[in-house]
């Protein structure tokens, strides 16, 4: 990605692709309710759009059976939904989200018991990368893209290969993947994604203050990250998906943490 074209834009113009986890199984058992979550996120999206006039936001819903674009700030269709209580942008997003959920429910089929209910993270990641590629090819002037994942569902090990492929292609196109994990355990995939692509990973301790987390950490544009300190994890869980061997304990030994170990 050449830096010369962006000189025509100010350095801090950004395109944020937000991957929203809409896995109903996760949200039905989460301490944070989906409506509260949505209010945090919608306010956050608004804030990003106010940071710079040229900022763009794209929202992709990561469902259980499918993924779809639910919002694009640069599109003109946002004007059509008027609702006295909500800002215009939000109401169109919510409308699309509802439609998406209806479609997703129709796609659901009989699942065996005890299966891990993970969302289609790899699918939405790939869709985000495709959108960003289109932006790259749209011309000389484009904002700096980055991806923000708001995930709570557990990792689906069958998606490991697809997710790693997406991560590496994001790394090649210099697209950082930020991730905010809302679930109760740790997500190795998100940690690896952020580590490899140079993004930020954080697991908020207090979900009531989610908006504050989002504003402090994830609103920073790429240019400012060179001088704003963002939280860094002490160690990254580099365990490959548990297909590759015995899963180790959560209190991961330091050998899993990011560290240079000599090869034997």
């Amino acid at each position, binding site marked *: 990605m050449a830096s010369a074209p962006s000189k025509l834009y100010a350095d801090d113009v950004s395109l944020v692709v937000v991957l929203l986890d809409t896995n*109903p*199984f996760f*949200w*039905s*058992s989460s301490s944070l*309710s989906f*409506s*509260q979550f*949505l*209010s*945090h996120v*919608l*306010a956050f999206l608004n804030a990003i759009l106010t940071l710079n006039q040229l900022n763009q936001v794209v929202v992709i819903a990561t469902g259980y059976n499918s993924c779809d674009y639910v919002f694009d700030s640069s599109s003109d269709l946002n004007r059509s939904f008027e609702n006295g*209580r*909500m800002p215009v942008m*939000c109401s169109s997003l*919510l409308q699309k*989200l*509802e439609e998406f*959920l209806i479609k997703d*429910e129709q796609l*659901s089929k009989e699942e065996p018991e*005890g299966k891990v209910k993970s969302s289609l993270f790899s699918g939405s990641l790939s869709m985000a990368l495709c959108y960003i590629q289109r932006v790259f090819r749209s011309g000389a002037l484009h904002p700096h893209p980055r991806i923000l994942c708001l995930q709570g569902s*557990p*990792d*689906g*090990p*069958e998606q490991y290969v697809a997710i790693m492929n997406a991560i590496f292609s994001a790394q090649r196109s210099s697209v950082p993947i930020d991730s905010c994990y809302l679930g*109760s*355990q740790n997500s190795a995939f998100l940690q690896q994604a952020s580590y490899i692509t*140079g993004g930020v990973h954080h697991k*908020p301790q*207090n979900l009531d*203050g*989610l*908006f*504050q*987390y989002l504003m*402090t950490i994830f609103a920073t544009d790429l240019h400012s990250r060179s001088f704003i*300190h963002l*939280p*860094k*994890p*002490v160690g990254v869980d580099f365990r490959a*998906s*548990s*297909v590759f061997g015995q*899963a*180790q*304990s*959560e209190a991961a*030994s*330091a*050998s899993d*943490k*990011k*560290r*240079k170990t*000599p090869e*034997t």
Partner: protein
Amino acid sequence: MASTHVTKRAKYKTTIKDPGTPGTLRMTFEKILFVPHNPKSAGKLDVEFRYIKGQKHTKEGSNKPPWLNLTNNQNGSFIFEFENYSDLQECRDFVGKVLAKGGEVSEKPTVAYPDEQLSAAEMELRIKLLQEDSELQKLHKQFVLSGVLTETEFWATRKKLLDREVSKKTKQRLGFKSAMISDIKPSTDGRTNKVTFNLTPEVILQIFAEKPAVHRAFLSYVPNKMSERTFWTKYFRAEYLHSTKNSIAAAAEAAEDEELAVFLKQDDILASEAQKKIRRVDPTLDMEADEGDDYTHLPDHGIFREGNKEMTESQNELYKRSLSQDINRHAAVVLEGRAVDVELEDTKAVAEALAQSKQKSSNKGESDGDISRERLDRLSRMTEIEDLQGPNTLPLAPLCIKDPRDYFDSQQANALRTSGDALGGIEQIKCGLSTQEVYGSLRESISSIKAMGLKEPIVKPEVAHQVFDALTNSISNTKYHIGKNPQESVLDRLPRKTKEELLHHWTSILELLKHFWASYPITTTYLYAKVNRLKDAMSNIYPQLEEIKGSVPSELRHQVSLLVRPMHQALDAAIQHYEASMQKRSAQSGERPNGYV
């Protein structure tokens, strides 16, 4: 009748004048043991045969008593007086045998411990590897020279390194020279009309390889019927006759001298070999040999020329040889490659070596019965007409592809279980709700937020303040501890010496653990001793690690202890296992009455 030892009653004298201490002399292949009858006397002797240089003895017919004098390589001598001469004879024979063998086996080390025998090449290889890799050298110095591991154990795990080196050194076999031997010009002496040929073993090998009839003649005639010199004289006479292309004179001389005839005639061995090759060939495909190879007795090499149908049949045909035959044969032998790889000292050795190699190759091709059966099988298979064959329905195993998700999901369940996270269980339970219900609840949330608008306020001020505080604290802490760059490694921030020491400790711990865990289960005393040695070495590492921790400035101490923790864990696990197995052993051995461990 070969015996492995000899035991005789004898007296041991240090000098001739010494009356001698009576005792028992026992000789084995390795050493001589003399034990006096009286345990208090000082004449006990235990000498290895390696040191014995020679033997002398007194003659039977003389009046002297039967003495055997063994001299060692420091010019000392051991004199044994036997009861009679037959004893002396036996001992003499035995010593003679051992001394004769001693010439051969002097390089063999004593069989005291089960070490491998290293050739000089392997030693060199190991030294070279050690010189190239300083890490390996440090490990070697640390463990082998201090006695924790033996050489064999150290190199046993590195066989791949040694093999790779060895394979680089395979020698190339030189082939024959391309120049034809008939081009070797003798030196002629015009005055005395003598022609001198210079024969080297190399040339002789080539001659034998190209002309198997000559080879056969050599093996049968020399040295029984004629000397080697005569043989070669006749051979060169034959060559001379050929070069003159005077087949009439050749026939005449051949009639006189039958040995010469052998050299002048066509090489029948070649002919029979070619025919054998043809018979072996599978007519379905192989182009290896065909009738054209047996060209030596066909006029014009089997190529029919128009207008030249007159064939002069005379008995002189037999003695004609053409240049093209020679060239073809020479080329075939050169391309085949060298079959004999030994040192060529003299003609006899050359001839025998070549005969041996031919024997070997013909043995390989033998067992005609099998070959012909194989050929028939192949023929029948190749000439099958597929349309006329019956259907061959081989029993097929049905393909059984399982859903890979089953495996993945069970692994994930394992992961959740072993991670010991109670919440995971709860989450699983709650997902017992039906899909309809969960989707319904989600959509309800959306409708509620549509109706109510965004939460007011989005976030409570106290909560926001808390979050902000916590974040800034943690950010500043980690920055202090780890550094700005997430890709940066902790090791790089340590002083270089500490980093190297830590890495070296890591590799040496791995080496020790490798050998430690490989020795379990303990079945021999050797392994037991080895495990003890390893455990001692491992216990010595703990204080060294503590020292490193202490030497580092205090702000890095936490990082170093994080790095050192897995080393501790690995060592602890090994030592725990060791102690548990020791306990088990002592518990077991308590039951054994005779204290057997």
